[in-house]
């Protein structure tokens, strides 16, 4: 039944869109109908009612939906080898749902075939043209207009999803829970406040650091850390990372240097000769983060952030204990400890 009824609404929508008068007629009609209004980067979207059949095209949208108790009918594959593209921190919320996995470029036909009543495309990187075609299939939500395509803060995004599926109270509850977890961590480690910390990567011979609107940079900020000043002087690419010259890694020489990596790539970090000139290396203030926790930081969602916090809190404390000789377990295991 939901399938055929949304097919009917699909016809009505495409009629409205093809009437080309959507600029004039549609807002009037929508205002008349009421419904849920969302202003986003590509304009305004109105949902007639809270959504139930949601196709999640953002790379991390599944986490928010699952956290609010609604399994998406389709999930966008980002990376990693996890069933349905749902990582371990979100698996318990999946239940017996079997979402379709959308890999690579988004096939518009595939999305239409799923007959969604909402397409969640915040953090998907789709173009305005794709947005317009998708909008003929179902209402589409893009990222918040105040942020870059991948830069909407997790709490803002969770709140939007909560409204779109009619679970605003639950969303507020979940958000408050995560904020409380970070506040508690800050209270346990008052010495972290104001110290510098940076999340860096080493890929394909290129060293870089996450900054600005990036989830990993925000995670560190939420614990009271601030980015190193030299990093702030580097130009940001896409608003969330900076590339370093292989001859000068000093912008990441922070009080806490976190390597976002995987065990398979640990040798690339271990072999990075310039790293040995950093004070963070000499004083054992580096923390290696392997694939699962790196994924949790990269997702940066209402579900993955508390998961990452729980996994990393003790190791961060060890790295920052002021005693260079205490081994930071993950860094030792990865073979990058001094």
């Amino acid at each position, binding site marked *: 039944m939901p399938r055929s009824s949304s097919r009917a609404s699909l016809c009505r929508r495409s009629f409205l869109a093809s009437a080309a008068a959507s600029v004039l007629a549609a807002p009037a009609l929508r205002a008349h109908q009421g419904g849920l209004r969302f202003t986003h980067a590509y304009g305004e979207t109105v949902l007639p009612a809270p959504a139930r059949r949601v196709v999640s095209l953002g790379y991390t949208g599944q986490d928010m939906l699952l956290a609010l108790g609604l399994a998406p009918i389709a999930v966008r594959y*980002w*990376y990693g080898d996890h069933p349905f593209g749902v990582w371990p921190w979100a698996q318990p919320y999946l239940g017996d749902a079997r979402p379709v996995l959308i890999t690579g*470029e988004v096939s518009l036909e595939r999305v239409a075939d799923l007959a969604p009543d909402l397409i969640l495309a915040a953090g998907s990187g789709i173009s305005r043209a794709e947005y317009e075609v998708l909008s003929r299939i179902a209402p589409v939500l893009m990222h918040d207009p105040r942020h870059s395509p991948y830069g909407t803060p997790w709490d803002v995004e969770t709140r939007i999803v909560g409204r779109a599926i009619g679970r605003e109270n639950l969303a507020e509850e979940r958000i408050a829970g995560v904020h409380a977890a970070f506040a508690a961590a800050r209270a346990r480690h008052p010495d972290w406040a104001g110290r510098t910390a940076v999340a860096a990567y080493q890929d*394909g011979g290129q060293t870089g650091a996450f900054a600005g609107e990036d989830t990993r940079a925000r995670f560190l900020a939420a614990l009271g850390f601030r980015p190193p000043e030299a990093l702030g002087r580097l130009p940001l690419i896409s608003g969330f990372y900076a*590339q370093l*010259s292989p*001859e000068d890694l*000093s912008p990441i020489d922070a009080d806490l240097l976190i390597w976002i990596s995987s065990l398979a790539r640990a040798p690339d970090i271990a072999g990075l*000769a*310039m790293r040995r000139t950093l004070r963070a290396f000499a004083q054992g203030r580096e923390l290696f983060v392997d694939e699962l926790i790196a994924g949790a930081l990269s997702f940066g969602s209402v579900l993955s952030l508390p998961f990452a916090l729980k996994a990393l809190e003790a190791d961060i404390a060890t790295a920052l204990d002021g005693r260079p000789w205490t081994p930071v377990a993950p860094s030792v295991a990865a073979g990058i400890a001094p």
Partner: protein
Amino acid sequence: MRTLPLLALVAAAAALSLGVGVRPLSPGNVWQALTAFDATDADHVTLLALRLPRLAAGLVAGAALGIAGTMMQALTRNPLADPGLLGVNAGAACAIVAGGLMLGLRDEGAMAALAFPGAALASVAVFALGGGLRGDAGPVRLTLAGAALNALLLSVVSAILLIRQETLDVFRFWVAGSLTQAAERPLAGMALVVAAAGGLALAVAPAVEALSLGAALARGLGVRPGRVQAAALAVVALATGAAVTVAGPIAFLGLMVPPLARRLAGHALRAELLVSAAMGAAILLLADTAGRVLIAPAEVRAGVMTALIGGPVFILIARRIRPGAMA
């Protein structure tokens, strides 16, 4: 042949490669780094762990591509022949990416071993497609065959990327070459391969020149065309495979260098090969050094720099070819 200016050019390129970068190094630093190396001194590490391997990689890959380009142009009598444009680079890169992923290889040495069959298959394929086996590898036909093969192989690399998102870092290196990962590459081994390819090139050079007079005339001079073609293709595959292993695919270098070398060396293939090796190394080193400072602290990959210089050169050469000419 003007040997002295050529050696001076290579020496100047090498000096710039060691001396220029984000981190300014004084001659004193350089001396200290060489005599009393300190792994925690950023200047020393820059010189010995970053710039010296880049210099070595530039010499190896540049010389290899100079040799490969000259041999390809001599064999096909096509001034547009270049291991990058004709898909030989792409063949090596594709073999490394596809083979490396499918076999789950992470070892650089094993990955490098894939470059050679990849380069060999691609060079035989483009030569056969371009009509080279029948001795009529005209510029247009061969260039078209090469462009098609190049596009096909690079699409395969792109397809692998789309399916496996985590391969993005691997992909970046194998699509546009650079010297940044030089320290992790098997430099000494590849230097030997390039030396062997160079020796083979010098040995078959007279026979390749005879072949350029036409297959029938060459046979009359006691040359066996099939063998000579096989040896010349082996030179191309060995030199290109080694260059790709060390620096990834570097486009246009094998295109630009031979015409310049011809001006210095005249139309004697042996001299041209030697000059090409030196000039290839010098130009690649200069491209890498320029890419290092152009948008510092970020770097422009050497493969992108050679493409920037080589694109206009390609158009210049293509405009000078007359329809039907064998150049």
